[in-house]
């Protein structure tokens, strides 16, 4: 029998307001095993904890029940107290008489009665508790960053700076992400390339960083500190280590009319290409769907002109297996498709474009060499209409669009409008807005400058429809402040399309067992207090894959994620959770039910020899749990038809004892 001490907390008036704490500690005195019972104002305070330590000594306690707030709050605190008093920390049970009792009851009588019942259940459980000792596992001192946008780049640089090796897996032929496509960046209007490309070069030159470009993660197993990852390096038909990036092949390739994804299809590229001049790695890639040599075996021009001899038409996809201690997800975002927004005539007119396309149109390295020209006829547009919130802030069940605010479009639209008026003062610029949302350092000032100094016409209202007519775009819109419907003949319409997570994020989350919200943004472990960690241990979040973000926010989050990774990799060993499953081999019939439900792949089977009652030996297949991988979810314990699987610290017997105590 245990010697149990019961400590009832008032939590100021939080508990004592609706629960008669004196009555509770009195009633629990007579429960089996209880040798000491008391109550105190704040059990978690230093004085409260000292009281527990004192009682352990004086009464030789072997088990502790604290009737207090949720174990999520202070279980760890009281376990530490127990350990300091020389007890095994897993000999502590918490009866939650705050969240599950005093806060939900108004009446002192019922509140007190329920608190007593909850206390009895915890006592029944602690009587069956056994000391548990957590296992330890080593930490592989290498990090994986998935996605090579500014988020992934910054995280990798910071981790490498602390001395740990990092691999970046980027699915495109170059790192850089969306920022590489931008022209100038708010709020300071420095050119994106000027601040991004030095960082890309840093990554390329850093000895601690390896870049797997044109690659993807195909398999993840293992657990925090010990992930095993398979990376698929797609064949680019060019030997990366030999190609010098001279571009001779690109110039000579005869297949020149392939839509250029880097310029969002507004111009063409050849079948062999380097996305942009500062690409990292600066290596050519052959598009297998466009190359005549790969499709029909005819051509081979690039191989002839390559002085370095880097072209290899027989290259195959390559699979690399590597171990990592931590994984950072930095898969970013994309603008949503405008296909369903017929009212804006995006698919009917080349002169209706998205904001990202506008970035390319104004970028010196873009399809029009930085001159703002209409995609349809190359003429200079004189009237431009910007539409904000296209596909953002829609009702939750909307068949097109997203429920959230995309956060960055108010600012980049102000930027586009301001830059247009600055460079082309003869242009009329209208911005239709529902709200202008510009919180952030120097952000609202920036937007006001667009209005007051650059004469951008901000109109509170929305565009209802755009109809191409001749070489004009007839824009019909509302001006809610003037209470008018407006008709504008525009030359160019720019849509601030909502943004969404990359489509590959969902399958990746499944591989990582990391959780996502309904919009496919990765979920953080705690929205306020643990914003860069995923609830899955060892998986961290960086950049727009977690929610819409601009560059300053992305970079701060990227640094925060790196510091969490560094904190993990700096450890030599990780202490596990001892509340893991284990199977009773004598009862296990090897049916595989448990392995089928285990979300973490913690269960394997082995053939073991058993002595039978008649002294013969028999080989049977039985389940075995890897305690380092098991997260203690308990799924297997309910799936097991023979009752062989049990969870340490939450054994079936303990749970039933609690239920019995409650029902008595």
């Amino acid at each position, binding site marked *: 029998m245990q010697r149990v001490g019961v400590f009832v907390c008032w939590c100021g008036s939080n508990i004592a307001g609706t629960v008669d704490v004196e009555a509770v500690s009195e009633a629990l005195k007579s429960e089996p095993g209880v040798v000491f019972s008391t109550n105190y104002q704040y059990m978690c305070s230093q004085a409260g904890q000292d009281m527990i330590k004192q009682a352990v000594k004086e009464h030789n306690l072997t088990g502790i029940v604290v009737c207090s707030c949720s174990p999520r709050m202070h279980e760890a605190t009281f376990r530490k107290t127990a350990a300091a008093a020389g007890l095994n920390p897993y000999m502590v049970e918490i009866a939650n008489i705050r969240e599950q009792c005093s806060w939900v009851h108004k009446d002192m009588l019922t509140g007190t009665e329920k608190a007593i019942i909850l206390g009895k259940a915890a006592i029944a459980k602690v009587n069956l508790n056994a000391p548990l000792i957590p296992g330890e596992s080593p930490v592989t001192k290498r990090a994986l960053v998935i996605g090579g946008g500014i988020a992934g780049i910054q995280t990798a640089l910071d981790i490498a700076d602390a001395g740990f090796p990092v691999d970046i897996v980027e699915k495109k032929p170059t790192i850089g992400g969306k920022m590489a496509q931008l022209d100038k960046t708010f709020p300071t209007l420095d050119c994106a390339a000027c601040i991004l490309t030095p960082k890309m070069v840093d990554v390329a030159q850093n000895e601690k960083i390896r870049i797997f470009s044109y690659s993807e993660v195909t398999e993840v197993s293992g657990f925090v500190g010990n992930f095993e990852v398979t990376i698929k390096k797609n064949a680019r038909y060019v030997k990366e280590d030999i190609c010098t990036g001279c571009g001779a092949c690109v110039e000579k390739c005869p297949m020149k009319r392939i839509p250029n994804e880097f310029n969002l299809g507004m111009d063409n590229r050849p079948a062999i290409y380097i996305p942009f001049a500062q690409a990292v790695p600066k290596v050519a890639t052959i598009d297998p769907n466009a190359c005549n040599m790969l499709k029909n075996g005819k051509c081979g021009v690039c191989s002839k002109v390559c002085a370095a001899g880097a072209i290899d038409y027989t290259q195959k996809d390559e699979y690399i297996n590597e171990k990592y201690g931590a994984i950072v997800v930095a898969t970013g975002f994309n603008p949503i498709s405008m296909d369903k927004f017929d009212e804006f005539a995006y698919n009917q007119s080349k002169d209706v474009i998205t904001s990202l396309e506008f970035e390319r149109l104004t970028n010196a390295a873009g399809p029009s060499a930085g001159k703002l020209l209409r995609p349809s006829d190359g003429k200079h547009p004189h009237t431009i209409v910007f539409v904000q919130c296209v596909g953002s*802030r829609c009702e939750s069940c909307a068949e097109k669009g997203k429920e959230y605010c995309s956060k960055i479009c108010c600012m980049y639209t102000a930027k586009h409008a301001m830059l247009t008026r600055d460079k082309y003062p003869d242009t009329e610029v209208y911005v239709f807005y529902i709200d202008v949302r510009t919180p952030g350092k120097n952000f609202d000032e920036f937007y006001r400058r667009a209005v007051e100094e650059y004469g951008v016409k901000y109109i509170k*209202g929305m*565009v*209802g429809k755009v109809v191409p007519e001749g070489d004009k775009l007839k824009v019909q819109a*509302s001006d809610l402040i003037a209470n008018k419907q407006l008709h504008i003949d525009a030359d160019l319409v720019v849509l601030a399309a909502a943004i969404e997570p990359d489509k590959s994020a969902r399958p990746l989350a499944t591989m990582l067992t990391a959780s996502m919200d309904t919009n496919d943004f990765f979920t953080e472990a705690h929205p306020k207090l643990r914003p860069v960690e995923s609830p899955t241990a060892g998986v961290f979040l960086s950049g727009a894959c977690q929610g819409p973000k601009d560059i300053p926010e992305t970079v701060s989050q990227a640094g925060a994620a790196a510091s969490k990774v560094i904190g993990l990799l700096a450890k030599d060993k990780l202490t596990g959770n001892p509340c893991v499953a284990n199977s009773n081999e004598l009862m296990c019939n090897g049916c595989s039910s448990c392995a089928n439900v285990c979300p973490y792949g913690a269960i394997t089977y082995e053939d073991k020899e058993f002595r039978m009652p008649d002294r013969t030996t028999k080989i049977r297949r039985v389940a075995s749990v890897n305690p380092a991988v098991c997260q203690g979810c308990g799924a297997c314990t309910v799936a097991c038809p023979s009752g062989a699987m049990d969870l340490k610290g939450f054994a079936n017997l303990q749970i039933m004892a609690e239920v019995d105590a409650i029902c008595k």
Partner: protein
Amino acid sequence: MHNNKYLQEEIIRISGVNPSKCMRCGKCSATCPAYDEMEYHPHQFVNMVECGDIEPLLNSKSLYKCLSCFACIDRCPRGVQPAKVVEAVRLTAIRKQGANHLTADMVPEIVDEDTPQQLLVSAFRKYTK
């Protein structure tokens, strides 16, 4: 402004619309082909019903200018369905008057080439209920 709770609830009930879903973007009014003929515009209908300011709507000709084209329903990002609000106010007005105004033999008199067909169809529907 007058807050007519009874009429407000009645209109919300008939239309099945929750006007508090409106985020005041004005896309309905940006889209509305009858805008210039209306004294109160689709977003105002929604807003005034939300505020219980019903009388001015009941007495406004705007009620009969709406073409029931449902463009506003199609475009509203928040799924508010302004046309249903207009329709519900129209029904309330007619029920209040307790009369069926439009009969078949009245049609030749009021119709001219500018009268949209939808207006007649929807007027018939409403007037003879």
